[in-house]
């Protein structure tokens, strides 16, 4: 009996290790990143309740649903988010729209939290400021284009500042919008995006999306956006 229990114990420990390491490598290829500040850090521009639900519920659901979609396709699990999103035709058809929506949701929201800061606002400086002036005429004109894009995106989606793929026009910036959780990867590298799904602003701004778009400038983390601009090809 003792021997049997011992054997059972060893068997279980072994299985446990296999399951555990399996779980690490396979079950959750993607994790929800922590918010880089507290829920109320962006008050009064974005309220704590919105931040908590947006991060802990909406973003978390994208991560969970992405992991769930990838469960039966181990080969897809080693890909990065941008690899998945830039080559959706190489994702198995039965999970393609789940990956498009949820990898997109994970990618976009991860970029979103770090694009904001309680010490945000003001204007960009240095090379990014120069590129904005060159591409839009002035920072104010860029803001107008970005707000107009966000206001005109019908339904759920995002408005973006994208560094256009280099080549003949290196360093050129453009404003674009995407529906739902599509990321603008085919156009270049998104360096700044604002979420215009109603869940991003409804508790505080209700139907007044333009008001939210205006207030949002107060929390934009320009040093981080400058880093992204420099890092993009």
């Amino acid at each position, binding site marked *: 009996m003792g021997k049997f229990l011992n054997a059972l114990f060893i068997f279980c420990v072994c299985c446990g290790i296999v399951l555990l390491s399996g779980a690490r490598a396979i079950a959750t290829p993607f994790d929800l990143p922590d918010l880089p500040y507290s829920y109320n850090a962006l008050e009064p521009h974005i309220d704590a309740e919105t931040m908590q639900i947006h991060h802990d519920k909406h973003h978390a659901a994208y991560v969970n649903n992405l992991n769930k979609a990838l469960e039966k396709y181990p080969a897809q699990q080693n890909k990065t988010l941008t690899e998945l999103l830039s080559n959706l035709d190489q994702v198995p058809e039965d999970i393609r729209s789940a990956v498009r929506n949820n990898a997109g949701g994970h990618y976009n929201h991860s970029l979103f939290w770090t694009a904001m800061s309680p010490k945000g606002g003001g204007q960009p400086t240095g090379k990014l400021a120069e590129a904005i002036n060159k591409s839009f005429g002035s920072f104010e004109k860029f803001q107008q284009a970005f707000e107009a894009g966000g206001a005109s995106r019908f*339904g759920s989606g995002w408005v973006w500042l994208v560094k256009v793929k280099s080549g003949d026009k290196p360093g050129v910036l453009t404003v674009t919008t995407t529906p739902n*959780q599509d990321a603008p990867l085919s156009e270049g590298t998104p360096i700044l995006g604002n979420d215009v799904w*109603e869940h991003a602003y409804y508790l505080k701004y209700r139907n007044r999306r333009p008001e939210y778009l205006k207030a949002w400038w107060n929390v934009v983390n320009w040093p981080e956006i400058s880093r992204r601009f420099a890092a993009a090809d």
Partner: protein
Amino acid sequence: MAYELPTLPYDRSALEPKISASTLDFHYGKHHAAYVTNFNNLVKDTPLDSLSLEEVIKTTYNDASKVGVFNNAAQAWNHTFYWNGIKPNGGGEPTGPLADKIVADFGSFDAFKTAFKQAGATQFGSGWAWLVLDNGTLKVTKTGNADNPIAHDQIPLLTMDVWEHAYYLDYQNRRPDYIDTFIESLINWDFVAEKFAAAHA
């Protein structure tokens, strides 16, 4: 000829606590009203001004130059249809020929409910879940943003708004809770039966 925002068929607090007066203040008083205003502004002094909303929806569908008109016309129509499809103390089960047809086409009333829930829960982003008659068969469908069955030659019988503004103040991210409440205690089956009868007349 300006299209007018139809009166809400009940008091703004009549659906409490399932849908709050605050939600109706914004959903009807701001969102629906804005679609109507935008629509009127867009068609003013154009040939579309003399058409019914249904005709505008059909003519402007898939016309890239008329996206704004289509969106606002369809949203004006969808919301009116949505308000009429719910009522205080709604829910329960349909009776008569509609109930028979649901059993014939879905297998059971429960199977219809499951399909309708599924359509609402899986419409990614903003949109609508529908019960329609498609060539004489009842079907559950879902559409994105403003899209509407009339544009697809189907006859709408019931709709559920799953834009976040429809439920966010009351249910936040919990869309499935809103959907359950909608099905179990808001649907106005008399209205659905009327639409069903009219489609057969």
